[in-house]
């Protein structure tokens, strides 16, 4: 069964090619069948492989499937191949599973809209690229997948390309992640130049033997890889693109910007844990970035009024949790949270999509209210997702994964307790903002009445994801991942106080949200709903001013330079040659006066010159 590994990325890729080739010629039902079916078949293949390989993987087995040799230059040979271990098996199940559910949902979401063919083509390509990314056994093939998901993100954010704001958002996403990608490429070059190979296993081994922890080279390489991860996963300081990326259709936000692409950075750091272990300063940086980001984004989510932007900031925050866990070496916990987050965040987005669609494309929560009566399915789904996000203990998958992270963060050496404090505060804010959304959208006075009905293709995925968001914590994911990721050393013990805090904080957050957004709101007829001073609230809503900062520091100077260089100074080399030629022609033409005496004089002058040579030489 495991030999079918190559089919897992190949099936969505074939789907993409079929849809691209048959653009405009396939009837709508066929497009849906091809688009959803390819990912579905990939999921079945992945499940079959899991049935066969899960056992060996948990004990650390790695199945390698070489594909072909791409090029051989001198003594550097680049081979493409797939590697399956516990980590990548987990990732492909997440990607194909959530991917299939989102594809199914999209059938209903995009019903009656144009561009279905293009949509499923891009989505299939995205799934294929993401699978290549997680299955790659070499950093070069990983980078191919990395670029592929970046491209598809751009294409899918800008799906409704006729709207200029959407195009701007897509471009912003691409450019910001590009900054990170540049760092990643430089890191790859650094690695291949100093270690001679890009094969991940060989590279990790070579790094371990050749470098000591804290050397300049591994620190530099790890820092550059971190730059790439920060860009793709929307962490500080490159987090500005994700809220704007919500301009894309909701299924895109659910799949790409919640469950899969933004987790690519987390996967990268986890996969390269060997390298990061040799760079303790970078690991500290990773943990700090994660902690700061999760707080920053949680406050941002609290102040948003667009329901998708709330979820976007929430994603940034939750990935901050994963990154923080990676920084302290809790790799298993981070990936566990990645899987539970994929379930409940996709669930939240898809439920929000139902609300948006039924309200006639209304995104603003201030235009919603009291919808639990009209949209029971979406209400239950959103509630379950919110509970899992808020990490209600024991009964939600999110609760298990977040609790594991916080425990292992507290146990970590050095500044573990500070990170734990950030994570705990973040948990309180998380419960607060997500139940703010719940109360504003589904309770309180009605503002807009929903119309139409929700098709089954949209409700079925919601049901599956809801179940997963609740019971998914029972899967022994961290233990399974111990087959390929290191387990952190046990440190400080977490006493009964931690259990109490883990139990109480989410409930406290829910209660505060209930107070502010339900009781007082219905009473005071929706006046000032901000729990903090308005200036601070405004700053949170603007994402702590990062957009303004980047516009002033980067965008304006580039714009100025483009304006100044309108004549294209670099092109002057080529145009200069033609200009010089033309000028030379015009100058020399002036010697052709057509006058007899002038030509005679020229003859005499030439003679004088030649004689001068004879006289002087």
């Amino acid at each position, binding site marked *: 069964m495991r030999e079918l590994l190559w089919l897992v990325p190949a099936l969505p890729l074939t789907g993409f090619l079929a849809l691209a080739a048959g653009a405009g010629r396939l009837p709508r039902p066929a497009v849906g069948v091809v688009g959803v079916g390819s990912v579905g078949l990939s999921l079945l293949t992945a499940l079959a492989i899991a049935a066969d390989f899960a056992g060996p993987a948990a004990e650390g087995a790695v199945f390698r499937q070489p594909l072909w040799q791409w090029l051989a230059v001198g003594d550097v040979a680049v081979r493409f191949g797939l590697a399956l271990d516990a980590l990548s098996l987990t990732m492909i199940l997440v990607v194909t599973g959530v991917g299939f559910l989102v594809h199914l949902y999209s059938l209903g979401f995009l019903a009656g809209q144009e561009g279905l063919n293009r949509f499923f083509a891009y989505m299939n390509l995205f799934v294929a690229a993401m699978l290549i990314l997680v299955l790659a056994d070499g950093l070069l093939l990983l980078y191919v997948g990395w670029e592929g998901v970046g491209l598809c993100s751009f294409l899918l954010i800008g799906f409704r390309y006729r709207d200029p704001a959407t195009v701007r958002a897509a471009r912003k996403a691409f450019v910001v992640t590009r900054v990170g990608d540049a760092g990643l490429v430089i890191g790859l070059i650094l690695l291949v130049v100093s270690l001679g190979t890009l094969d991940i296993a060989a590279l990790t081994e070579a790094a371990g033997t050749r470098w000591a922890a804290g050397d300049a080279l591994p620190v530099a390489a790890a820092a550059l890889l971190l730059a790439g991860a920060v860009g793709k996963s929307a962490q500080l300081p490159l987090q500005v693109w994700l809220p704007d990326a919500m301009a894309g259709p909701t299924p895109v936000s659910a799949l790409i910007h919640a469950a899969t692409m933004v987790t690519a950075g987390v996967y990268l750091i986890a996969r390269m844990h060997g390298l990061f272990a040799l760079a303790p300063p970078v690991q500290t940086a990773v943990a700090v970035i994660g902690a700061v980001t999760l707080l920053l984004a949680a406050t941002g989510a609290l102040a948003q009024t667009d329901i998708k932007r709330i979820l976007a900031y929430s994603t940034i925050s939750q990935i901050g949790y994963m990154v923080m866990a990676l920084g302290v070496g809790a790799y298993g916990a981070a990936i566990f949270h990645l899987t539970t987050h994929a379930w409940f965040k996709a669930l939240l987005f898809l439920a929000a999509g139902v609300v948006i669609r039924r309200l006639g494309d209304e995104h603003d929560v201030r235009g919603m209210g009291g919808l639990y009566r009209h949209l029971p399915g979406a209400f239950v789904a959103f509630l379950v997702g919110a509970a899992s996000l808020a990490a209600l203990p024991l009964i939600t998958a999110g609760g298990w994964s977040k609790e594991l992270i916080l425990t292992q963060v507290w146990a970590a050496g050095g500044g573990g307790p500070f990170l734990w404090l950030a994570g705990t505060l973040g948990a309180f804010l998380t419960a607060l903002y997500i139940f703010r959304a719940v109360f504003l959208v589904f309770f309180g006075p009605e503002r807009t009445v929903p119309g139409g009905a929700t098709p089954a293709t949209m409700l079925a995925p919601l049901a599956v994801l809801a179940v997963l968001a609740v019971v998914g914590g029972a899967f022994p994911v961290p233990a399974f991942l111990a087959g390929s990721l290191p387990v952190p050393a046990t440190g400080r013990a977490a006493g009964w106080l931690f259990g109490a805090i883990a139990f109480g904080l989410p409930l406290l957050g829910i209660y505060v949200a209930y107070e502010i957004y339900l009781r007082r709101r219905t009473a005071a007829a929706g006046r000032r709903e901000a729990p903090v001073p308005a200036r601070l609230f405004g700053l949170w809503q603007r994402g702590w001013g990062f957009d303004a900062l980047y516009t002033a520091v980067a965008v304006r100077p580039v714009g100025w330079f483009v304006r100044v260089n309108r004549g294209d100074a670099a092109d002057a080399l080529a145009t200069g040659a033609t200009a010089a030629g033309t000028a030379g022609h015009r100058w020399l033409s002036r010697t052709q006066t057509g006058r007899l005496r002038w030509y005679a*004089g020229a003859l*005499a*002058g030439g003679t004088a010159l030649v*004689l*001068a040579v*004879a*006289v002087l030489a």
Partner: protein
Amino acid sequence: MQVTFYLASVVALLATAMAITRTDAVHALLYLIVSLLAVAVVFYLYGAPLAAALEVIVYAGAIVVLFVFVVVMLNLGREAAEQERRWLHPRIWVGPGLLAFVLLVELGALLTGDGPAATEVVAPREVGIALFGPYLLAVELVSLLLLAGIVGAYHLGRRPAPEEAGR
């Protein structure tokens, strides 16, 4: 003898200078004749009587006469003389004068140097023998050239017929 040479040289130079600066064509031609005669004297002094004779007969006697014919044919009147005066303003001499001076200096630098002087007279008889001997081919070619000159001059100088006057 040398005094005669220097006198003749001065006359030749002065006459040439006058010839190129006159506004009236006929005056210029007359000065040209004087110059040519002075050069003929120089030829005789250098022991080349045939050259002296040919200079007078052909150069001064045929070529300059040809010039006179054309001047008369063109019948350039008073307005032409006025035009010449206008064309000959002093500023026009600067550039060519400089160029000519440079050329003269260079030629002078190349031509200075002592060597044996000319001492014999080369009689016409020897020149004739040379022409019918080693230079026979050259003479034949020159005759061809003269034929071409005649034909060319006749054709180019033809007055166009009335029906082809537009061409």
